[in-house]
């Protein structure tokens, strides 16, 4: 996937990996539409990209809100053109602090599914169709090792991310041969607000800088043609110097 001049939509773009990816993609010459709930934080990221000479537009919206889906996809396509790359980095943990399954309100699981699975499907549906007609496109879904490991207290988040992984596998199988690719990426543990919410006493020195991970994900995006469509991969495989 050529990034210079391409049209990119990034969710969860006001913080953490989403913000770092938006900055890196803009620096690579992509026109970037950024989505996040927090208008002020989002504006700071957009301003930063513009100050660095990049093209960026901020769309304040909640990806878990059904009504927001058309606004996000429509505004993005209007502002940066038909979307070539969709990066879905927005996520919610459910309860904070994390809770055991037996203490989890089912509404918290429903909310995690809305933001982490249903919302991503809504946006994927809205951008992948036109991508197929144009014969190219890339969908990147950000997952977590909690989607495969049975970490106690990570029920709502882990179950929703497992569903996202499989959403990507099936979508990739259905899009095989169209020129549109799906990749689900596990970024590894990062120094982010979300990680601090989940594990407040983690040693920051053991956590990755989101910008380092973003560089890996950009390398992955450039090499996505070599992956099976719908593959779930670890970003560390794309560490600089890794083969």
């Amino acid at each position, binding site marked *: 996937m050529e990034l210079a001049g391409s049209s990119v939509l990034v969710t969860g773009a006001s913080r953490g990996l989403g913000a770092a990816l938006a900055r890196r993609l803009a620096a690579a010459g992509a026109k970037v539409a950024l989505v996040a709930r927090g208008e002020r934080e989002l504006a700071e990221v957009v301003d930063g990209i513009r100050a660095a000479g990049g093209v960026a*537009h901020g*769309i304040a919206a909640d990806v878990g809100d059904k*009504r927001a889906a*058309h606004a996000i996809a429509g505004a993005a*396509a*209007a*502002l940066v053109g038909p979307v070539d790359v969709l990066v879905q980095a927005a996520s919610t943990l459910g309860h904070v602090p994390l809770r055991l399954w037996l203490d989890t309100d089912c509404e918290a699981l429903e909310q995690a599914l809305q933001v982490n699975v249903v919302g991503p499907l809504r946006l994927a549906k809205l951008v992948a169709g*036109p991508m197929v007609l144009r014969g190219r496109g890339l969908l990147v879904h950000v997952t977590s090792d909690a989607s495969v490991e049975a970490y106690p207290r990570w029920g709502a988040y882990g179950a929703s991310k497992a569903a996202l992984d499989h959403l990507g596998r099936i979508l990739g199988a259905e899009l095989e041969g169209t020129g549109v690719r799906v990749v689900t990426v596990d970024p590894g543990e990062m120094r982010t607000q979300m990680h601090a919410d989940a594990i407040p006493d983690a040693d920051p020195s053991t956590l990755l800088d989101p910008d380092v991970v973003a560089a890996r994900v950009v390398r992955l995006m450039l090499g996505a043609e070599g992956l099976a469509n719908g593959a779930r991969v670890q970003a560390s495989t794309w560490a600089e110097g890794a083969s």
Partner: protein
Amino acid sequence: MTPATWPRDERVEDRLLVIDPASGELRDARVHELPRHLAPGDLLVLNDAATLPASLPAHTGAGARVELRLAMHLGDARWRAVLFGPGDWRTRTEDRAPPPSVRPGNELRIGPELAAIVEHVDPRHPRLLAVRFSVSGAALWAALYRHGHPVQYAHVAGDLELWHVQTPFASRPWAAEMPSAGRPLAWSVLSELRARGVRLAVLTHAAGMSSTGDPDLDAALPMPERFDVPSATVLAVARAHAEGGRVVAVGTTVVRALEGCARLHGGELVAGEGTTDLRIDARFRPRVVDGMVTGLHEIGSSHRELLHAFAGEALLARAWSHAEAAGYLDHEFGDVCLVLRGG
């Protein structure tokens, strides 16, 4: 014909009347059977314009309630728009009370963060305006999606949401009203077409409004409309024709874009953006398009006139009588027809 009042749950079950202008044959089918009526090497061209939330409730500085309907993006925060009086889609457009007259500089307040300032009033039609919004860029798009609704008409059973009026392949929000011929083409059908060797190509055409209820204003429809033809589509059309395939336009908007684009360039299709005011009728000889999928438009409408470029009136009249007798539905959620010489 009876109007469809709501989209079918299973869009590929919409009916498809196959009209062959060469043999004069009519055949009843369903949209999911479209693949068997096209051949490998044929090219289906689709309009990927998303439908805008183009209906904006507003009030004038004097407090009069009005509705502003977006017709065409003029660039930046400027739009061509048509002003309607108080009320909404539940009243037939022809029965709507006229809006108060407005002058350049007047403000139409849509929401706390959004107003449209009248820049120009068309001297021929006092309801046809050029407006400039009070915000631009991402803030304008967010506000339009917050306050706007899809344009709809009185034959529909309830309030429409944007997801009711999008095709399965909608991208840039350019269309004032849904490019409805593409609505029933679910990906199950498009995937089967691809698997059978029918190629798909795309363009974007800013489908305009279909009716204002004002005879003078309606006579000016369709207004000039914007289109964008990608180079891949230009190549796909050339390849289809070179290999004996047929170019099938999905919707009148695709016919206008392809033929309008060719007319702007001496008969050649050229990639890029343009604006067309082309009106197609029985005298028009298509250079690019061989056939089309379209709705069962009302006799006398510009959409129905356009069909005369592909089939004679006697055949179309017979087809429309058959459709009526067989219970086909018309309007934007209605059934469709394929007008194409057998191949």
